[in-house]
């Protein structure tokens, strides 16, 4: 099973790379104007999806779909406990022993606590290829496959496939020469350039490859490599319209801001490798398949400790070597530093506060890019990494994550209220939803966060693609120039409505809802649970609930402004049209998934949100040891086990609050933009300062400009001045003095010794030549005589001279 799964995913992972290479070398020659490039790229990703789906089916067939462990379902619990190792024994003998032992512990542990799954989760890990293998440093192309990996693979390839199809329609302008009306040349004309259709798909393929690389990565070093690859793809794609100043600036901004986060990530990597001596998640195996060095997770949550988080021995040891007074404490700090460092990378990639500024600007890229890169997958990479790295995070770090996520979700949501660019609204919405995910992870809701990651990926890509469809129709991003488009493009309008309903978590409380309903409820329930256990932080739950209201408000503001009411710009309205089928088909597909992806499949437990197959699968992937309560050593915070949030009381309360806030936001939006009971202008003027504050995005750009960019530029200017005035002056004058000195000295040496010697040799040679030219009489016959005489002389010499 391990080899089949790893090979399937390897193939699915490498197909986009192959597509990238093909397009890279043969792009413009593939079909007319590179039209074939789209088919190559789409074929690769669809094949990848098929392979991933196969892998998912295989996974489900092997491990079953059930993964949740409730306190009251001991039978199921026990059955799962036995089922899991058995299947492993049958299929993965190499790991069998470990897992059997783990099962014993699980039983014992389960008897003590009776909550959560405590046995080892099903995961395959290994290496495909070893890049370098020094004594300590081993960098490999490896894999770490668990249910999350398989799910993410399927999700990413599915969405990417939809987006590839969508892009085939959306990017058709690039098939021929393009006149870019947003770029004005110095002579007043618009830029004309050849189409870059194939290049777009080339980048898309590379992006898919990189994203899948992160998902499948078996060690943190590999993750980092593909992390950066994703970053560079993002740079390429944001800057796709490179001639536009705004696009190139946005690309630079995204890249540079990400570097800040990656710097922290490198610190985290160094801390991990320096102390643990390995990058591998699962552990390093030798050729026989035995684990020779435990992975990071195993070191942090040792099996012998029942997977409880404990400062790894290696960290304590390295702290001791550093000469720390309290090695235990220092080791723990080291673990915190490592976790914060990794999270720092995630902050950059997932555009969390305070590194969120790049994401809205990144909307300069083509809309399919926004859908794929900046909503559903790439920014999800940060969340994914937090989820993947979850076992290593101490409660202190998790608290930090929760705070950051909370701030982000609220801030982004407020900014989204005032944005009028349809894509920017969605971008801030993305920020906000990512904040939700981080928040969920931070408050201990691993499954909730991951579930939201997946559901959000579907409905956010749907929303982006719908917005792209609108933009494609009316050729503007400004919602103030739209309106009433529902009549012109019904499919887009109603699929977008589905997306909006999904994102606000619409549903009938306690009964059924769209995908967002389940994930958002789970998040809020866990937040409430957390707030109950940590009273100091229960404000975060209210912030999140308020965020839900704001979410509902701005989403429906967007939908109403776009599709409802009278057209604000008749000319644009007249030209609007429904998108071609290649563009709306993906919308329908995604809408389907946005509705049903988290729906419980079990008819008997239909109203139980945790009965959803998605949740069950994620439960299978839950990191070992995170299913229980645990508390921090330093910050005095307690991470409640997630299953606690499933208590009827908490869950019902959270669900009702969420429903209420969402309905409130929805109603407000209806009042303002549909029914026109309230005039938006009036409201705006009433809250003018707040509006300005929000309109200017909390003045983050200005703030960064003032505290980072301007001082940096000032420093640069000062240093340049210093360089020019002092150092250059000194060096110049030194050089001048040296030159004049060496010139004189050099000339003296040259004249006296070098020239003298050469001239002397030349004169001698000349004299010798003059002397030697005498025998050179130019008379052939004399030469003959010379030759004969010379021969005779040699003969005589040989006869009488040398032999005697």
């Amino acid at each position, binding site marked *: 099973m391990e080899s089949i799964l790893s090979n399937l995913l390897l193939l699915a992972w490498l197909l986009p790379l192959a597509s990238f290479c093909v397009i890279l070398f043969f792009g413009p020659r593939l079909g007319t104007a590179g039209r074939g490039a789209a088919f190559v790229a789409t074929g690769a990703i669809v094949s990848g999806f098929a392979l991933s789906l196969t892998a998912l089916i295989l996974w489900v067939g092997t491990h079953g779909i059930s993964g949740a462990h409730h306190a009251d379902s001991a039978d199921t619990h026990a059955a799962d406990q036995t089922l899991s190792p058995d299947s492993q024994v049958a299929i993965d003998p190499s790991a069998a022993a470990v897992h059997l032992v783990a099962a014993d512990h699980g039983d014992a542990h389960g008897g003590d606590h009776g909550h959560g799954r405590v046995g080892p989760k099903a995961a395959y890990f290994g290496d495909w290829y070893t890049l370098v293998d020094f004594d300590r440093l081993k960098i490999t192309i490896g894999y770490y496959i668990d249910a999350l990996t398989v799910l993410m693979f399927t999700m990413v390839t599915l969405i990417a496939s939809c987006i590839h199809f969508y892009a085939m329609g959306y990017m058709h302008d690039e098939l021929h020469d393009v006149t870019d009306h947003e770029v004005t040349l110095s002579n007043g004309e618009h830029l004309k350039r050849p189409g870059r259709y194939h290049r777009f798909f080339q980048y898309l393929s590379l992006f898919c490859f990189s994203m899948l690389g992160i998902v499948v990565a078996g060690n943190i070093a590999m993750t980092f490599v593909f992390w950066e690859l994703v970053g560079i793809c993002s740079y390429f794609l944001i800057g796709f319209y490179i001639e536009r100043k705004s696009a190139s600036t946005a690309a630079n901004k995204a890249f540079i801001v990400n570097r800040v986060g990656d710097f922290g990530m490198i610190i985290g990597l160094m801390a991990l490798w320096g102390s643990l001596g390995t990058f591998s998640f699962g552990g390093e195996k030798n050729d026989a398949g035995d684990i020779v060095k435990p992975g990071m997770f195993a070191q942090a949550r040792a099996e012998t400790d029942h997977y409880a988080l404990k400062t790894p021995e290696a960290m304590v040891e390295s702290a001791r070597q550093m000469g720390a007074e309290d090695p235990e404490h220092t080791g723990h700090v080291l673990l915190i530093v490592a976790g914060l460092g990794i999270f720092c990378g995630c902050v950059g990639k997932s555009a969390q506060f305070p590194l969120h500024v790049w994401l809205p600007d990144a909307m300069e890229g083509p809309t399919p890019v926004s859908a794929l890169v900046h909503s559903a997958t790439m920014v999800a990479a940060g969340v994914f990494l937090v989820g993947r790295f979850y076992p290593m995070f101490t409660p202190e770090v998790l608290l930090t994550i929760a705070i950051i996520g909370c701030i982000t979700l609220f801030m982004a949501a407020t900014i989204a209220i005032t944005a009028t660019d349809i894509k920017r609204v969605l971008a801030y919405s993305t920020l906000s939803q990512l904040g939700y995910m981080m928040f969920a992870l931070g408050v201990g809701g691993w499954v909730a966060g991951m579930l939201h990651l997946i559901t959000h990926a579907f409905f956010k890509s749907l929303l982006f693609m719908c917005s792209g469809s609108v933009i494609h129709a009316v050729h503007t991003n400004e919602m103030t120039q739209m309106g009433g488009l529902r009549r012109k493009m019904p499919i887009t309008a109603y699929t977008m409505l589905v997306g909006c309903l999904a994102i606000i978590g619409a549903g009938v409380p306690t009964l059924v809802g769209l995908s967002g309903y389940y994930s958002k409820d789970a998040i809020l329930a866990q937040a409430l649970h957390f707030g109950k256990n940590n009273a100091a932080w229960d404000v975060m739950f209210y912030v999140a609930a308020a965020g839900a209201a704001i979410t509902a408000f701005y989403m429906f503001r967007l939908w109403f402004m776009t599709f409802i009411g009278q057209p604000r710009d008749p000319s644009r309205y007249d030209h609007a049209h429904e998108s071609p089928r290649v563009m709306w088909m993906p919308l329908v597909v995604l809408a389907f998934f946005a509705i049903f992806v988290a729906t419980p499949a079990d008819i008997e437990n239909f109203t139980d949100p945790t009965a959803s197959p998605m949740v069950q699968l994620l439960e299978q992937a839950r990191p070992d040891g995170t299913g229980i309560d645990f508390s921090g050593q330093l910050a005095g915070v307690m991470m409640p086990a997630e299953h606690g949030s499933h208590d009827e009381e908490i869950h019902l309360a959270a669900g009702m609050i969420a429903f209420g806030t969402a309905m409130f936001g929805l109603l407000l939006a209806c009042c303002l933009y549909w029914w026109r009971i309230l005039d938006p202008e009036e409201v705006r003027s009433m809250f003018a300062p707040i509006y300005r504050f929000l309109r200017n995005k909390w003045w983050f750009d200005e703030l960064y400009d003032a505290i980072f960019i301007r001082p940096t530029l000032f420093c640069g200017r000062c240093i340049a001045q210093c360089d020019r005035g002092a150092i250059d002056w000194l060096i110049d004058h030194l050089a001048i003095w040296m030159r004049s000195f060496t010139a004189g000295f050099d000339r003296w040496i040259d004249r006296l010794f070098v020239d003298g010697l050469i001239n002397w040799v030349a004169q001698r040679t000349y004299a010798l030549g003059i002397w030697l030219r005498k025998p050179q*009489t*130019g*008379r052939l*016959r004399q030469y*003959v005589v010379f030759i*004969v005489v010379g021969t005779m002389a040699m003969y005589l010499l040989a006869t009488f001279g040398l032999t005697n």
Partner: protein
Amino acid sequence: MFDLLTQPVGLTHYLIVGAVMFVAGAVCMATKRNALGVLMGIELVLNGANLNFVAFGSNFLERNPAYQLGLDGQIISLFVIVLAAAEAAVALAIVLNFYNNHSTVDVDRADELKG
């Protein structure tokens, strides 16, 4: 020396004929002012040497067995003949060019490169 005439033909006979031709060729080269005369001298010298090679390689002559070249001598003299033909062709071309440019074949007039 004169009993050579009455003795069976040996290596010495050939060597002496070769020596005479060689010396004649050398003297010819040294005395002829006509470039073609010099060429003829060269041919004589080559033939003298050639004769020696053949004689050293011959099985039919009285000789000191230590100086037995075998067929190698004949092959070398073949090479000499062929190379002499090549040499003559080039030399003749040079002479004709010289004649074209200077209207003479006097080698004493060809001293433009003298030191």
